[in-house]
């Protein structure tokens, strides 16, 4: 089997608890990185990592490998992140109803808990990434950082590949401009 993760997930479904641990070891850190950048809060990101694996655990008897395991994993993570970002306590009064033009929900300066990732990627990039609309941020992170193909990003975001191409380019272009000018 080409996808080792699929093999592990099927083994877990067959009763191999160690396979689940192996999946956790392989994917907890990348998921944490992705979710931190999406929800902009380290504690919330850790909770969401747990939530992702809880759903993986629940789905063990019904898992059918239709795509790469990581695509499925990031789809779960993206749905959870987008739901987290849309929770009422995070909404600002002026939030647009147009998702692509929506003001970002994240804080513009990292809190102490988030400082670690900000240091890893630079304060300015962290700040500007948080200013991107959610789906642009997700598309760019999944493609440029997590290494998913556009087809996989499309499945994770439930959009077309053409939309992914536009989302990624818009996100990169916006960040390029803002990082260059300090806007």
């Amino acid at each position, binding site marked *: 089997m080409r996808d080792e993760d699929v093999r592990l997930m099927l083994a877990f479904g067959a009763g191999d608890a160690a396979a689940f641990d192996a999946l956790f070891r392989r994917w907890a850190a990348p998921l944490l990185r992705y979710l*931190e950048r999406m929800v902009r809060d380290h504690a919330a990101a850790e909770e969401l990592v*747990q939530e992702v694996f809880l759903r993986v655990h*629940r789905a063990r008897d*019904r898992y059918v490998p239709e795509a790469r395991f990581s695509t499925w994993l990031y789809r779960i993570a993206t749905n959870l992140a987008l739901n987290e970002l849309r929770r009422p306590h995070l909404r600002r009064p002026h939030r647009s109803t147009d998702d692509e033009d929506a003001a970002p929900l994240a804080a513009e300066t990292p809190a102490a808990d988030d400082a670690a990732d900000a240091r890893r990627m630079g304060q300015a990039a962290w700040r500007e990434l948080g200013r991107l609309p959610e789906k642009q941020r997700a598309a760019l992170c999944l493609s440029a950082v997590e290494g998913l193909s556009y087809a996989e990003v499309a499945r994770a975001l439930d959009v077309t590949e053409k939309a992914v191409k536009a989302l990624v380019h818009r996100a990169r272009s916006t960040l*390029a401009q803002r990082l*260059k000018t300090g806007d």
Partner: protein
Amino acid sequence: MPEIAATCLAYEEELSALIDGELSVEREVEVRAHLDACARCRARVEELCNVDLALASAELPAVPGELRQRLAARIARDAAEVRAAPRRAPPRRAFRRLTAPAAGLAAALALALYATLRSAPTPEAPVLVAGPEPRPEVVEPLVPVVPEPAPLELAREPAPDLGEAELDALPEEVLAVVMELDTIQDYDVIANLDLLERFLDLGEGAG
């Protein structure tokens, strides 16, 4: 976005896809030919690549050691809740006929489950039927009528749709579970018996 020369416009949207290796062979050849001749677009590619450099981390974040333990505790609680959920024949309750769609796919899928659970004795032919009127002193939520033990299957026909009035009438905790389906539908966990049982319990406990 900075002003782009007309000749470069046709290639601008392709530059990210080029960086990501997502262009067809033919299109990549065309874009690279343009880059060979256009200093502006070459600079643009470098600008876009710098974004990726800025986003890249030297290392992955550290996963706290206790995260796995917290996960184990949650999984154990999850399993305990499933075991503790009483298995009983639910009482027959009234429910309303469903009307024209207003809700999103999450609600439609939830209603697919409703339809299945409420179906006539043959699960493969889910049917919505009107039940008896509720007792006047009890506010009845939209609660499924669950048949005697039968294999659970997803509805084969298009899911009936909830009207806004029906959605508004759902108790908050039931609606929360319905909305939660939106996050898990795509990986087919709507067949998850744990969630279904929780859903039924919430429906019975509400009102």
